[in-house]
């Protein structure tokens, strides 16, 4: 086994935002024999992930993997687990959304089709679909939901402490320049001086990143499909625990959580959405906003970045490998990023055309309530279902399997949700 000789002895992570810190910690855990070094760059105002304290439920799995106690995370970052969203759109009644990871089934029939049948048969007297999912949540004690909302600065501080405790070397520099050689990074020069080298370079420098572009990776622009939005945060949180409220106004969104308030506003000067054509070239991989940017009014942006880290670790190549893992990484990342683009379109500009993938998802859902997403989408089928039910046009057809159910099953399924009805 000749290739087994090659071992990653050093990793250089560029960028000390939450994604860079999280990556450095995860790599340190995965490669206890390797030196992990982090290059700290001045703050990047274009970054959303360093300012928006929101993650999808994947963060819980990530924390388990790096050994971060969930109670410590919750206490230090003032985290609130979001599980009910209220959407307010111009001139429309408020809509509620609750979420599960998997699409719930009752007697082999998707829950939403039972609900749709009941609504057709019994008119407007039905509980909303969110109530159906909340009832499930209560019955199962499901953590599910939308993931935590938290104080991002506190989280960054917590990860910084963890990195220091794990002997991750942090070097603060004003800027780095990349020297490329034969499709790989030969080294980085810090502030025009000190020379930094490693077996693996992880670009977590956020929107300003250029490590992969220095190697010739192209950027695919999504401005035609997705809105250009700027983000501003204010610390005045409010509302009931677990609740958040999204008001769509004038092409922007005001998003109120118990922990903070965010305003997403149309801004032609904002850095546009898009992604790298290749995320892993030679010995360098870009993750998080260095690889993909799309506005989200939920925790999926950070969720996708954490998935990048998990994917990177699952496919960690040996330095002398043939590049097959890199290709597999790119294949999986491309699927994840397309899913993010579709999700971003649905959530930040509901009703607009959005990316081509979203049009297909929307058409399949509108036709007969199918959630036609890729099997490797980092956004789970249950999450898609909840959002499509909340924001998309409702399916035109009730599934025949739901019509085939005995009336009593439909009645009892709906009755389970009735106690969970909450006035909006």
């Amino acid at each position, binding site marked *: *086994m000749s290739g087994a000789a*090659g071992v990653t002895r050093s990793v250089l992570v560029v960028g000390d935002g939450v994604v860079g810190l999280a990556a450095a910690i995860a790599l340190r855990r995965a490669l206890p024999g390797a030196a992990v070094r982090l290059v700290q760059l001045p703050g990047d105002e274009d970054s959303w992930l360093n300012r928006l304290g929101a993650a999808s439920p994947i963060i819980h799995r990530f924390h388990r993997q790096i050994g971060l106690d969930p109670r410590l995370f919750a206490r230090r970052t003032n985290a609130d687990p979001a599980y009910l969203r209220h959407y307010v759109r111009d001139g429309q009644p408020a809509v509620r959304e609750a979420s599960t990871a998997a699409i719930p089934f009752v007697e082999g029939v998707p829950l939403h089709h039972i609900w749709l049948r009941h609504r057709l048969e019994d008119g407007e007297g039905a509980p909303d679909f969110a109530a159906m999912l909340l009832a499930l949540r209560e019955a199962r004690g499901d953590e599910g939901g939308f993931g935590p909302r938290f104080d991002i600065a506190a989280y960054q501080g917590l990860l910084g402490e963890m990195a220091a405790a794990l002997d991750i070397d942090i070097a603060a520099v004003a800027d780095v320049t990349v020297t490329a050689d034969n499709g790989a990074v030969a080294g980085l020069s810090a502030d025009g001086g000190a020379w930094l080298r490693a077996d693996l370079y992880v670009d977590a420098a956020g929107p300003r990143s250029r490590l992969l572009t220095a190697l010739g990776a192209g950027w695919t622009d999504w401005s035609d499909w997705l809105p250009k939005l700027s983000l501003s945060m204010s610390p005045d949180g409010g509302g009931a625990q677990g609740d958040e409220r999204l008001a769509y106004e004038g092409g922007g969104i005001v998003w109120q959580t118990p922990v903070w308030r965010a305003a997403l506003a149309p801004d032609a000067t904002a850095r546009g959405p898009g992604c790298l054509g290749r995320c892993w070239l030679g010995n360098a991989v870009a993750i998080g906003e260095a690889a993909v940017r799309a506005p989200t009014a939920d925790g999926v942006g950070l969720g996708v970045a954490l998935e990048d880290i998990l994917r990177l670790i699952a496919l960690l190549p040996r330095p002398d*490998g043939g590049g097959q893992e890199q*290709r597999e990484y790119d294949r999986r990342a491309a699927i994840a990023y397309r899913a993010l683009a579709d999700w971003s379109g649905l959530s930040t500009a509901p009703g607009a055309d959005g990316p081509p993938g979203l049009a297909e998802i929307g058409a399949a859902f509108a036709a007969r309530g*199918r959630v036609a997403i890729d*099997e*490797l989408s980092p956004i789970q089928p249950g999450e898609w279902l909840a959002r499509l039910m909340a924001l998309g046009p409702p399916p035109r057809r009730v599934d025949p399997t739901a019509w085939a159910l005995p009336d009593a099953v439909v009645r009892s399924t709906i009755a389970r949700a009735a106690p969970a009805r909450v006035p909006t």
Partner: protein
Amino acid sequence: MIRPEPVRVVILGGGTAGWMTAAALAKLLPGQADIHLVESEEIGIVGVGEATLPHLREFIRRLGLDEMDFMRKTRATFKLGIDFVDFGAIGERYIHPFGAYGTDIAGVGFHHYWLRMKAAGRVPPICDFSLPIVASRARRFAPIPAGGDFLDSSYSYAYQFDATRMAPMLRAFAEAHGVRRSEGKVVGVDRDGTSGDIAALRTDRDETIAGDLFVDCSGFRALLIGEALGSPWEDWSQWLPCDRAAALPCTAPDGPIEPYTRATAMPAGWRWRIPLQHRVGNGYVYSSAHLSDDEACGAILGAIEGEPLADPRVLRFRAGRRTKSWDRNVVAIGLASGFLEPLESTSIHLVQQAVTRLVELFPQRRIDASDRDTFNALVDREYDRIRDFLILHYHATRRDDSDFWNHVRTMAVPETLQRKMDLWRTSGRVELYTQGLFLEASWVAVYLGQGVVPISYDQRADTPAPDRLAKSLTELDQAIRQRVAAWPDHGDYLRQAGAWEAA
């Protein structure tokens, strides 16, 4: 009326595929599907697919059938995997188990740790770390207990059964659930003048059966999808050259019953051996370009381990599938839709998969093109993934003892398979997908079983200290042996559980 009108479904053909479709639609779509099946007793059924995959249990469960009753009626035995003999090289064998090897450690697949220990020269074969393999070799079986430990959840099982007994059983079930049946041969197909869709079938008994949706389960004849609609066939024989089988049942030997199917590579293909309660199914799957029918019949007669119960019967087929399994208002299910040789017991699974998709995408009386397109995309993906997995069994070989093996060893394989093999060879990793029949453990089984050892493995597997890792592997090995030693003999369990049909 809000509730849609029932869709008139006409199923042509009463073999395994026809009655599986009828039973599932009748059970899962009462009031939504009005089902009429037409078949002729004069036309025999192929009854291929004596060995099955664990997914069939879900089909039985959804129909609400009693498992033991099903096993008695089809003279079934349990199946924990397939024993592949002489595939990688003559004299080598491995079992592709329904289950995993070992357990992940720190989120890293077990086989990476095994590869590390193998490189260091201090590890038993990987099959020792699979509960279903060790149980197969010991010819033992136990059902999966609810709420069991990691070993209990490390395996699954299927059945080996008499396929010709399944259709009559499902027929009784379907008719009890309201399916109408007509006896007769189809002699005419009426098309709608405007749309070109099929409007009705006419039989030799002067019956005209009209419908909205037609399900073609007429087998290789493909009377509707092929003859009537001319839907194109995508041929895969350049990768899967076997196109015939010489099948032959023989008496079951006394003694323990193998809870697994055996596939033995032969000079021009391979032969199956499937132990049932009352007999053993055998067949030589071969390439007619490399072997004559007489030679194949002679070879299978010479290879069986019991008294022949019939003369060898030659079946003809070709590997491939329709480019559209659902065309206009005709859905092809079973052999009319496509064929992949039974090397991994996928025939009945492909029927089950298509039926499940049809239920999921069941149309209204006027068919929506998007339902059809989605069905075809899902069926294609399933076929394509199985195809690549089957080709691997032939291509990953060192055999050079016959023209047949020289051909499959050196042929160009589909790009989708080449990419998977390249990833494995260099890194010990398996291309990730979550939907489909054969996931990581299956690919690992065939790669390692046929001698495709990667040059590297996940470097995270280097983390545990060598002695600690060796100790945990030894403990796992012992735990599996102890568990299997406590299991009953397979034959004893069949009788004990009430699965045995007293002859």
